[in-house]
């Protein structure tokens, strides 16, 4: 029985890099998610989040196979100027709120998301507070 990482390598030719994380090209993430769910049985989406490394933003996805309890964490790297990623809502319905949260707090846009609005912050809020360039010392609008 081939391991999950071996099967991913056979299918897509990707391997975890030297940091130990599997990076998925953003134009193939929908195809990859469908492969994970339908072929490998990773039917459980635990969360989607984002980390701002200043030069680039990493989206972090964690999926799980509920029968074998195997977990797979993969990342999608985008640049802050072009922060657009295809949405996974068609494969995992739970992605809807997680992607709205990432959009709200990081400003990453999700292509094909049915209802991409702010979820935690008010609709009229300006800026994306979990970005590292968000000013912490200045009061936010309308008090600015």
């Amino acid at each position, binding site marked *: 029985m081939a391991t999950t990482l071996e099967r991913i390598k056979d299918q897509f030719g990707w391997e975890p890099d030297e940091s130990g994380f599997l990076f998925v090209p953003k134009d193939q993430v929908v195809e990859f998610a469908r492969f994970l769910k339908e072929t490998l049985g990773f039917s459980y989406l635990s*969360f989607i989040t984002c*980390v701002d490394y200043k030069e680039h933003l990493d989206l972090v996805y964690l999926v799980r196979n509920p029968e074998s*309890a195997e977990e797979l964490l993969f990342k999608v790297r985008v640049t802050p100027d072009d922060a657009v990623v295809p949405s996974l809502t068609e494969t995992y*319905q739970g992605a809807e709120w997680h992607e709205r949260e990432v959009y709200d707090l990081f400003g990453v846009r999700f292509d094909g998301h049915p209802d991409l609005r702010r979820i*935690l912050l008010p609709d009229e809020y300006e800026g994306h507070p979990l970005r590292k360039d968000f000013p912490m010392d200045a009061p936010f609008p309308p008090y600015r």
Partner: protein
Amino acid sequence: MEEKTLDLTFDEMRVNMGPQHPASHGVFRAQLLLEGEEIKQLTPHIGYLHRGVEKLAESLTYVQNVPIMARNDYLGPVANELVMSRVVERLANIPVPERAQYLRVIAAELHRISSHLVWLGTFSLDLGGALGGGSTIFLYTFELREKILDVFEAWTGARFHPNLVMIGGVRYEMPDGLDQQILQALDEIESRMHEIMEMLEGNPVFMERTRGVGILSQELALSLGCSGPVLRGSGIAFDIRKAYPYEVYDRMEFEVPTGTVGDVYDRYSVRVREIFESIKIIRQAFQELPSGPLGSRPPVKVPMAIRPPKGEIYERIESPRGELGVYLVSDGSPKPYRLKLRSPSFSNLQAIQFLVVGHKVADVVAILGSLDPVFGDVDR
């Protein structure tokens, strides 16, 4: 009784429910699209309790972050303290003495019981004062929960946010005689729970309002990332205490209760049976409780700053509501570079828009209650 059907058509109507609604267990706004009394669509709005803890965490040290995280899920604070401590311990390779691991399990299970008791009381209150007469069950469960709060008061000095778990162990030794007080409280909870269950399950109104209402299919539950009693109510026996055992849960003997249909009754039944399993775990933990030190780091007033190595890690535990996880990115400094809190209530609450369609307005309250969201945990 003869059933009468009115042959009328109704126009669509929009009704706003919340954000200040007594049955929403916090601040939750639902926009309902109704046809007659039947719900066509529910649009949830969350974020009223957003405090930005993930941003706040980046400006606090790891030691300061542990009690801050406990304020998220304010019905089961030990679970949040535990996950925050564990994630740092795993990344920085800090050992935890065996006695501290047992005490953590005891505290976490006591809070699971206390959280489920609050849920049971408010849930039966939501379903109408007629159950057992007024707020009887609400007061019964709060009386029982009081015993657990008394235990924490004697143990840590704080009734609600015990601040018991610290990185590398637990902060307070159990005072003499507290084990007897806990075991007595458990005996009483166990016998009174049977009484409460009999009152609820012998009540036709309760059964009518929970059976077959708000059915969550297994596929949808997995796809939405539901966890805890919501997932197990749909019949999937997934429990993080069994799947990825932490602390000393691998030595504990307990069952994972599951439902069959995935309706409101199954989620009720799973939580009630979990109380009995938690009682079993605590009794076993007391039998095996070893003696020894409480922590691998000295308990001083101003603890040394912890500098975990550079790295990223995800750690999860089974909180009373489900999978509670922290994704931590460390850059080697005493403060987290990024801290993501994966909260169970957030993912569980997402199910509400799928569950209420086709039900009556009054069922929204029952279905929302059965998901057991804590809005501090949803909005973070």
